[in-house]
């Protein structure tokens, strides 16, 4: 069986779906791993590294012979069309935004797994690419914020006066938000955070930051995710958050609700309430933005001197470790349904749809889109 990793073609995507040091986990099972030449360049993995790890490098068309295709971004409809019937793909594949690719997969008779849909159960944590990539994003958010800020993060008492610590506010304390809190605290900033989930207060405090209690009802959805806010509540939340925002030097927003637009946490007025030289990092820019006026992949400077950094492919900005974590997620999912080669028997895929994870993550199978997803 051939596992193929094509070069990512999406602009700005610097990750690779397999890094050399996990390849042996697949070859050990009896799988052949084929990497498109140059696939790992941005993630500091050369063709030679892959070869040394036991993979084959291919310069030519790779998809048509693949039994399984591993990628980060969804395969394009064109790529999907090239696949054998019955082939398997594993990648990010949002049922909301990647509709074309999903349709193409269904049409091609491909079984396409979406990492967004891996259920958040304990057993699946090692396949949870949303979490691993959010980790990278949260870390990056702080580095970017610190880089753009004209201020120090830590407090420093020096002969030339005392530098006061930066006030960092994190909105949305999920995986990315918590990591942002941790990183900002490491740098010495005074960090506070807000989130709508009830468990969040304890989690924020467990990172050593201050949780902002707004006395609004909490919003918890399925699988530990948040629910969408009503417009009423959103307005109330914005109003109550304004004073905290006004006194922050850096605001990092990470709020998301699965399958929806990112909630709008900050209006233009709230942005304007911040002083010159302050920075906003909007990790949700790609899905609509938590902050009014943020543009994915751009730094917008408001007339008031506030810089808004809109995140785009943020984990790609940490390509080495983002790929490192991503490829382990992918390998864990792949091995879940791979029957290792035994005496006389060849390696095979065994898609057991009774399994909660396989059932949850497979978007297409046998020529059609699965379930009501």
């Amino acid at each position, binding site marked *: 069986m051939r596992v193929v990793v094509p070069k990512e073609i999406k602009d700005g995507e610097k990750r690779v779906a397999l890094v050399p040091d996990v390849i042996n986990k697949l070859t050990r099972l009896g799988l052949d791993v084929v990497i498109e030449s140059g696939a790992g360049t941005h993630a500091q993995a050369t063709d030679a590294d892959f070869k040394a790890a036991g993979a084959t490098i291919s310069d030519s068309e790779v998809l048509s012979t693949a039994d399984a295709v591993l990628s980060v971004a969804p395969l394009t409809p064109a790529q999907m069309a090239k696949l054998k019937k019955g082939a398997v793909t594993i990648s990010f594949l949002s049922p909301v935004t990647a509709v074309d690719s999903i349709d193409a997969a269904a049409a091609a008779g491909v079984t396409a797994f979406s990492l967004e849909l891996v259920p958040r*159960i*304990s*057993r699946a944590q090692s396949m949870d690419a949303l979490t*691993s990539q959010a*980790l990278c994003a949260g870390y990056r958010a702080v580095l970017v914020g610190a880089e753009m800020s004209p201020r120090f993060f830590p407090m420093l008492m020096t002969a030339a006066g005392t530098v006061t610590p930066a006030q960092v506010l994190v909105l949305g304390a999920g995986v990315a938000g918590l990591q942002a809190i*941790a990183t900002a605290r*490491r740098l010495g900033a005074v960090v506070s955070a807000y989130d709508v989930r009830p468990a969040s207060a304890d989690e924020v*405090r*467990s990172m050593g930051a201050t949780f902002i209690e707004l006395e609004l009802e909490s919003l918890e959805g399925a699988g530990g995710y948040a629910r969408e806010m009503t417009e009423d509540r959103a307005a109330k939340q914005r109003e109550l958050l304004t004073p905290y925002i006004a006194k922050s030097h850096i605001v990092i927003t990470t709020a998301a609700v699965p399958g929806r637009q990112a909630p709008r946490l900050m209006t233009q007025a709230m942005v304007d309430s911040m002083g010159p030289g302050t920075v906003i990092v909007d990790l949700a820019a790609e899905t609509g933005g938590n902050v009014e006026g943020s543009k994915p992949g751009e730094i917008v400077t408001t007339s008031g001197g506030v810089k808004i950094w809109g995140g785009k492919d943020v984990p790609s900005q940490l390509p080495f470790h983002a790929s490192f974590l991503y490829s382990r997620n992918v390998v864990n999912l792949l091995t879940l349904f791979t029957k290792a080669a035994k005496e006389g028997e060849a390696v095979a895929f065994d898609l057991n749809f009774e399994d909660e994870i396989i059932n949850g993550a497979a978007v297409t199978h046998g020529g059609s889109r699965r379930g009501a997803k």
Partner: protein
Amino acid sequence: MSRTLYDLVGLAAGVAFILALKGLSHPKTARRGNLIGAFGATLATLVVFFYANPGSSLPLNNLGWILGAMVVGLLVGVPAARKVQMTQMPQLVALFNGVGGGAAALVAIVEYLHLGAEATTAEVVFTVFTVIVGCVSFSGSIITFLKLQELMTTRPVIFPAGRFIIAATLVSVIGVGGWVVSSLGTTPLLVLAGLSLLFGVLFVLPVGGADVPIVISLLNAFTGLTVAASGYVLDSVLLIIAGTLVGASGTILTRKMAEAMGRSLFGTLFGAFTAKPQDTSGSAEERPVRSGSPDDVAILLNYARRVVIVPGFGLAVAQAQHTVRELADMLIAKGIDVAYGIHPVAGRMPGHMNVLLAEANVPYEQLAEMDEVNPTFGQTDVAIVIGANDVVNPAAQTSPGCPIYGMPILEVNQAANIIFLKRSMRPGFAGIENELLYDPKTMLLFGDAKASLTKVVSALKAL
């Protein structure tokens, strides 16, 4: 041998007992303390063969009987003590205590018979005291032995009107005691002994299994007092000192044990009088857990060769990262092999434990990944689980269908001892019970992780 020399040797033995108790109350010197005690006892026993009583000639009368009886005692006592299993030691101690009490009662009876009408009132009063308390100690200890050995039910035995029967027995014991003092005679004394034995049984029956050790300790202190009383009757400073020491230290110890186990001493002891018959079939039995004190944890750690620290979300909630590092540093300084076993999803964020422990400056080399640390639990003396739960829950391996089934865990259940620091019996993130909390190898230290760790660190320093 002169009386003075004899007495001085006795005093020396008494001093040995003091040193023995002193030694026994500290882990480092406990063993030596016990040896000193044994030495004192041997000395005291030997010297009595060279001097018995003013005027009596040596060698002792009935020497053959005496030596024969001692040999029998040795043949019974030593093998029993040698062969008993670790877990059965408490009941053996109970048994030994009982026979000691019995011996004291017998000695008092013999001396009473011997003195006959010559006895002073004080001597009779002390004899009566010795007989009562010695017999209570004897029969009470036998019952505790039976309970611990599970030769009878470990639950409180409560029968209708029990408390009235007990009270009545106590009153009769006292009455018969008075009768002995006033009338002097063998019969009343035997009646007294019988009633006292009965009272001992009744006194211990209503005590529940968990409280039995406290009762043993109390009976032990009682026995000490009977020995002191015998010392008065027999004019032996040694017996007075030894008996009083045991009585006093035993009392303190009983109180401390009750405290450590979170029991009310009064409730435990006078349960017999207040207990009402209960519907025993009713509510589901509360499962027993073993909870320890910071001292217990410190001692376990102090004598370990390898310790694995398993941190979880609770460590983060308690912000105990600095304290845990302090603990680890102390253990390392003692030459103990210490590692932190980090589960990949401990906490609520990937790398949560790393963030915390880095803040406390824990060297990266001490952090061990799950795959690295799991094979070492077999050689680990103590796994100390600090505010973690799901990540060590064996249900993940044993209970298909439970929410964490299939998740790899830190196999702390392979370690020789497991210590849990948590605040309650509440489950963790996944909301499922952890069987490990009820494991006999597990000791629970309840409380906020930071507060608990601080106490453990203090206790460790005090060792």
